[in-house]
């Protein structure tokens, strides 16, 4: 079982890669909408990427209102 920190770190790496931003510029508490300059449709790209990476389904209503990487990681942890 991965720790929350490990999952968060993997999310940060995937987000940096997908949206082409330096990994070191992203922190667990960041608002990913603001930090990645994305809207809700582009956020779905991140969700899709995370679903493939972790081999899970992440229903939209479970991440509705989630804006920071750490909380997103906790939603994913609940599905691993």
């Amino acid at each position, binding site marked *: 079982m991965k720790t929350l920190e490990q999952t968060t770190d993997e999310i940060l790496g995937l987000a940096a890669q997908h949206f082409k931003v330096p990994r070191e510029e992203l922190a667990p508490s960041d608002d990913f909408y603001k930090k990645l300059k994305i809207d809700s*449709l582009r956020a779905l790209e991140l969700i899709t990427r995370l679903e493939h990476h972790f081999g899970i389904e992440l229903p939209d209503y479970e991440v*509705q209102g989630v804006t920071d990487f750490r909380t997103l990681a906790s939603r994913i942890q609940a599905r691993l």
Partner: protein
Amino acid sequence: MLEDLEQFVAALKSAEAKAAALIIYSQQEAGFSAGADLRELYVGSAGLTAAQRVSGVRKFLERIHGVLNAIDGSPLTTIAAVHGVTFGGGLELALACDLIIADKMARFCFPELRLGLIPGFGGIPRLRRDVGNAVVRDLLLTGRSINATKAMSVGLVSQVAAEGEVLRVARATAAQAGKFDRTTSAVAKRFLKPIPHEELRKEIDLFCELLARPEVMEGLRKFVENTGAHPYLP
């Protein structure tokens, strides 16, 4: 947009004698299609009585159903090559095709119930034709989106392509379909994929019935007036 689709369908009739397959693909970066323009629906309906609103939308729905029925019943083997967002009306267009081939990053959703409506372009009858009712209920009653892998596992999608490869895979599939006798393929298609006309008409009636409710206009207003990163969607 509707006029463009009607012109496309008219042109399709004359192309059917020469072609064996049709691929529907979008060059939009965000995806195949995010569906109907809700802003247009809201702005076009503002100031109208419920009866006027419903009358106008019913005429529009009947025309779009004419387009999708023509694609659905085309003797050609039709392939929706989808990527990214394939939501609402976009998914309904894909469902009118014989095969859906999806980019790995494609995502599918019927969000209509989140705004107090049901899909209006034939989504429920055509989804019911292709997948189990439990999947239909899951997608409709939660309004959640699913990825291409899940869509393939439930039978919505026939093939998943690597990122950026969906058009190539669709072309290879079309080339294979093109090797077959056209009459045989058309006969097989009519047998395998009957158009659910009665349910489609019922769907238009239900959509119009729901659209007459003030709650729907209120939901549309909140959705359209929200300009933030997070859309108004319950």
